[in-house]
């Protein structure tokens, strides 16, 4: 009972101080590029260059036209940047905030929000580049595009439960942190981002059974095909439900022990 109250309080305090989370996230991003002329626009510039090279190299390997493939790649890669950062940075956030955990009585939820906001701020810089590319390749949108708004809300919620579930566990077992980084790098290739799935082939099967595919589809499908992928929404919705329950349970059990682990 006491543990539940403690974990709940932690999150109430965290959400009440969400502005601090934003400010700390802003500082993190600014810190990385201070004293450079382009500053944080390096994130945007890097993404533009990456897409340029990748579109050039990989478009010949696909049946799609250069413009269509560039759009597909841009959206997929931008989303992957966000997903990867939510998982990897989110899991590491308590270990990274070790000094804080050990000498301040702030709620741990702040450090989780900080990591999630940092991922979204970084994504906003990437999104600038993505919008430039999509406009340049003359992408046309339908009203289905509005469904990306709830999709990003779901990304935000996912970022929070994934961090709440994994960050304490990664503080206890550091190997999981490195396993996750490696795992995400492998998943990048197992997810249809630089390749397109053809139904009935091995790649089609990999894409279908890979949950990350469905996280991409809820944004990519409405933008490219103008349709809302109901099957993908059901899958990510179910994963979120199970994830939130698992995270609530695990956070309640681990909350008081984190200070002994970090």
């Amino acid at each position, binding site marked *: 009972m006491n543990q539940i109250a403690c974990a709940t309080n932690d999150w109430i305090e965290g959400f009440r101080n969400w502005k601090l989370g934003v*400010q700390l996230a802003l*500082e993190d991003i*600014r810190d990385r590029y201070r004293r450079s002329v382009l500053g944080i626009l390096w994130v945007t510039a890097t993404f533009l260059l990456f897409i340029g090279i990748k579109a050039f190299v990989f478009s010949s390997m696909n049946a799609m036209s250069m413009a269509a493939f560039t759009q597909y790649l841009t959206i997929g890669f931008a989303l992957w940047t966000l997903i990867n950062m939510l998982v990897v940075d989110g899991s590491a956030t308590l270990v990274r905030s070790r000094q*804080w955990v*050990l*000498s301040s*009585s*702030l709620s741990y939820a702040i450090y989780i929000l900080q990591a999630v906001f940092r991922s979204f701020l970084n994504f906003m810089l990437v999104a600038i580049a993505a919008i430039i590319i999509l406009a340049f390749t003359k992408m046309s949108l339908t009203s289905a595009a509005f469904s990306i708004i709830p999709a990003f809300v779901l990304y935000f919620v996912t970022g929070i439960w994934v961090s709440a579930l994994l960050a304490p566990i990664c503080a206890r077992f550091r190997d999981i942190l490195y396993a996750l980084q490696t795992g995400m790098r492998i998943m990048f290739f197992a997810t249809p981002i630089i390749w397109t799935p053809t139904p009935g082939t091995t790649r089609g099967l990999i894409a279908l059974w890979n949950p990350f595919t469905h996280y991409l589809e809820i944004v990519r499908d409405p933008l490219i095909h103008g349709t809302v992928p109901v099957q993908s929404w059901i899958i990510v919705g179910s994963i979120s439900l199970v994830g939130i329950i698992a995270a609530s349970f695990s956070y309640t059990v681990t909350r008081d022990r984190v*200070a*002994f682990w970090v």
Partner: protein
Amino acid sequence: MARLIADRVSLYFPYTGKPLDSQTAIAKVGGAIIKRNGRTYVRALHNVSFELNNGDRLGLVGHNGSGKSTLLKVLAGIYKPQEGRIITEGKVGNALNLSLGFRNEATGRRNIYIKGMIAGLSHKDIDSLIPDIEVFTELGPYLDQPFHTYSQGMRMRLGLAIATAFRYDILLLDEWIGAGDAAFRVKAAERTAELAEQSSILVLASHNPKIISRNCDRKITLEYGEISDDEQVDPES
């Protein structure tokens, strides 16, 4: 009304060295290493109890590793004790780590805002504290320079100024007086005394008997995480 109660508090850390042959082992420093439920632990605090009410000023003394800082962390709610409990009434502030949250690349001024937000203050509250911090640190134009250009002493000044700019009901202070130049040490001691007067309850850990006798009316001595002595101190000015 502020109140701070420690009720039979014991704290154990996981022990990661080679397993013990005997039931307990005691070194000259640090907590006792003991076996509990078949596993080895460092017992950092053992059966610590005291009650503090409005106006109480407690000094914690003891040799290195006797549990002073750990006890402050338990009081601050950072470590949750496996046995016993802590009861607090009032807003708890801690200055356990003065350099926490400083950003190397940000200016001194920006750092004041970040630290203020960490302490739960609004932008406006912080605005009103800036002049006082400016005067106390004597940093002048350096306040708008990046933090990494500061010397150790300048960092100390800013850290102390910020930590002591916010008001709390219960204040927990770890030993940090003694750095900086002589003139600043006097200022720091004055600031501590002023702050101690303004908060309802003070818990101060220090190796310096003078600082304890100047600021405290009660002294608890810790040994291997246990209270070995609990006495009144005659305030000396």
